[in-house]
């Protein structure tokens, strides 16, 4: 069992719990049949832009 290790395998891969649970949720969604599958996948669109600020200046924006 991976959970018996000092840290769970996904955390040692640099993921947070959010990423991990999202990945799992996505896997479950892909188990759906059509047409529900594409509907569910379409619903979950991700789009935003992040910009880091250091000392009052924006760094290069990333997406």
């Amino acid at each position, binding site marked *: *069992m991976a*959970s*018996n290790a000092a*840290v*769970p395998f996904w955390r040692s891969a640099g993921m*947070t*719990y*959010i*990423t991990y*649970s*999202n990945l799992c*949720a*996505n896997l479950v969604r892909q188990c759906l049949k059509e047409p529900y599958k594409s509907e569910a996948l379409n*619903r*979950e*669109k*991700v*789009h*935003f*832009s*992040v*910009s*880091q*600020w250091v*000392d*009052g*200046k*924006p760094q290069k924006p990333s997406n």
Partner: protein
Amino acid sequence: MAMAALRREGRRFAVPLISPLRSSLAPSEYETMEQAVSGARSISTQIVRNRMKSVRNIQKITKAMKMVAASKLRAIQTRAEKSRGLWQPFTALLGDTPSVDVKKNVIVTVSSDKGLCGGINSTSVKISRGLYKVNSGPEKESKYVILGEKAKAQLVRDSKKDIQLIITEWQKNPLNYTQVAVLADDILKNVEYDALRIVFNKFQSVVSFLPTTTTVLSPEVVEREAEAGGKLGELDSYEIEGGETKSEVLQNLTEFQFSCVMFNAVLENACSEQGARMSAMDSSSRNAGDMLDRLTLTYNRTRQASITTELIEIISGASALQG
């Protein structure tokens, strides 16, 4: 009275050099300055007509915006109310500790990307500034994480140095948990925190929003507070399944709590935004209606006055010929 106002307006455009001061007057001030203008006889009503047309167009636009906001509000309101079930268990378990005293504060300000929605963005900015002041002190640092264009515009002006992260354009698609989770993940990865304070407008009804803060503590702080007792002290009475240690569970819990609270905050804020936009647009279309009424009255009176003048002229001319 109104005639004099119009006369002056007509003259103003014809002879702008004579009275350059008057052009800066507000419409209500016209009526207080009654002066007969010599030599002005027939008045052009063109300007008033144009003004009426533009007011009517603006009214149409604001009415349409109100409709759009109302329909969007209905869709998002049910989602926001449902999403409250996501953070309530967390509050039951961990309690809400807005007054916790920690070193690294991160203030997450939720605002909208678009304007024309009353004062909801300024309220959340104001509350964020207040939190910043309350939590600042020696050996402490507070940072802002800003969601949305509008809070960015306000906070960039005076708190540039303390901004850590700005996230915009997150309202392009309909809001969903995946997106908010990715967003929360980005925030967690990019800031160091002892306490995350999320500021948003909680939807109360279409006309009232409560500026709200929710505090998410880091696992270390949760443990420290748990030792101090209180609500968090009860955590020890829970049994932990599996081989995970308490700190691991707490870390997972905090991360998940943050994403859930963010999801709710974002939805509530979007809901309040639409509500505020609705009432703002409602009052502006009412104002446009009032303005239009006043303008129509002025316009009709002037028209009537000029007709009367012409009639008098014709009649007196005719009677002069007869006599």
